[in-house]
């Protein structure tokens, strides 16, 4: 029950962040993808099944805020959530450096897969935002690592 509540808060926070970022400056949405942050955070903390479900919900949410084929971001984020959750359970990604590198790799893979679907399968031109979108994996890795490490240390101190 607590996990569901946390997930709901995470999703609402992602929607709020996306809205605020868009209002501050629309091109920021190329760099900062709050939906990916939420999916990756829950994949690291609650592993593959929860990550996949969060990927589905956040991806479809991103699709509903976008014009295009409904389900593309959903599919991409489901794969992201499951893969990140599974790998993080098999190998130790808790140390900060490993955490950043791991998140950078999965974020880049997500971006590449998403662009592949959009460009090759649906024939849409890639929106790179003047190259800004290439910064997205780095921003995602940094933000999620920061959130993950803060929460982990707080929990350790609490125990």
């Amino acid at each position, binding site marked *: 029950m607590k996990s569901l509540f946390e997930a709901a808060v995470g999703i*609402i926070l992602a*929607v*709020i962040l*996306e*809205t*605020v970022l*868009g*209002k501050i*400056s*629309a*091109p920021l*949405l*190329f760099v900062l*993808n709050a*939906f990916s942050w939420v999916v990756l955070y829950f994949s690291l903390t609650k592993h*593959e*099944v929860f990550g*996949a*479900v969060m*990927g*589905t919900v956040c991806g*479809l*949410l*991103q*699709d*509903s*805020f*976008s*014009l*295009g*084929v*409904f*389900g*593309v*971001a*959903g*599919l991409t984020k*489901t*794969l992201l959530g*499951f893969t990140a959750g599974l790998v993080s359970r098999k190998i130790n990604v808790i140390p900060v450096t490993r955490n950043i590198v791991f998140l950078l790799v999965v974020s880049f893979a997500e971006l590449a897969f998403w662009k592949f679907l959009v460009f090759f399968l649906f024939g*849409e*031109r*890639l*929106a*790179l*935002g*003047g190259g800004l979108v290439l910064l997205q994996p780095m921003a995602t890795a940094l933000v999620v690592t920061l959130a993950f490490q803060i929460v982990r240390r707080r929990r350790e101190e609490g125990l």
Partner: protein
Amino acid sequence: MPFSLKERRKLAFFAGLVFFHLILISLQVPKGDQPTYLERAFFAVFTPVQHGVVSFFKYLGGFWKNYFYLRHVQRQNQDMRDEIFLLRQENQAFRNMLLKFRNATEIQEQLATISRSILVCSVIGFNSSDIYKSVVLNRGSLNGLKKDMVVLDKNGRLVGRVIEPIFFKEARVQLITDKESGVGVLSERQKVIGILSGYADGKCLMKYVLRTNKGIEEGEEVSTSGFEGIYPAEIPVGKIISVSEDATLFKKIIVDPYFDFAELDEVAVLAVDLRELY
């Protein structure tokens, strides 16, 4: 290494989710302009959250600006008074010009209809996947918004049109920078006709101008032609920034739209077809 029963269940669950997405995507083939029920449901549930967030920050900003941060207000008021004065003069000059063609009562009625039919809307959300495709407005069917209504920026330049989904207090706008959009346009000097659609990174492409056509140049303004039956004629759209040729029969004409994303905070929706008035 064989998978345990628990891991097999997880994999089956994951495969089910992937299958669900593939079915969802397949259901949209061929792609129509109607969003799926699931997309509508997500839009209906979460756009009020966006609406609330934007309203909250607007309220906070308004509170700060109205009660505390009052520097330059007097100067701004004076600038606005000057601008209103100039706009009134301009308005009067246009009215006088119109009088040459029609009688005063008819013009008064039509101008009143126009001013009643412009809805000022705030942009509450941008397209998360590609900002150049669409935006969400804070007005919907309760405010009289309907599909295909024309959306302009604060300077009266073309932004896009209202599309589905349209809910009670929120609606989506397809921008002219979306690749799937289409606007009938005319070049300024030689009146060369083309179809404008999105290209990449906020630029547009003017299509179907034959390469043998010599009447189009860089720097020319492009405005709506009104031929496609959605956008009224003579709305400024953008400026041609490059004209080139490739192996196809048509020229490659890139247009930089006039509307600015940084100033897309408020837009005007035309709730009347201007062609019916003139």
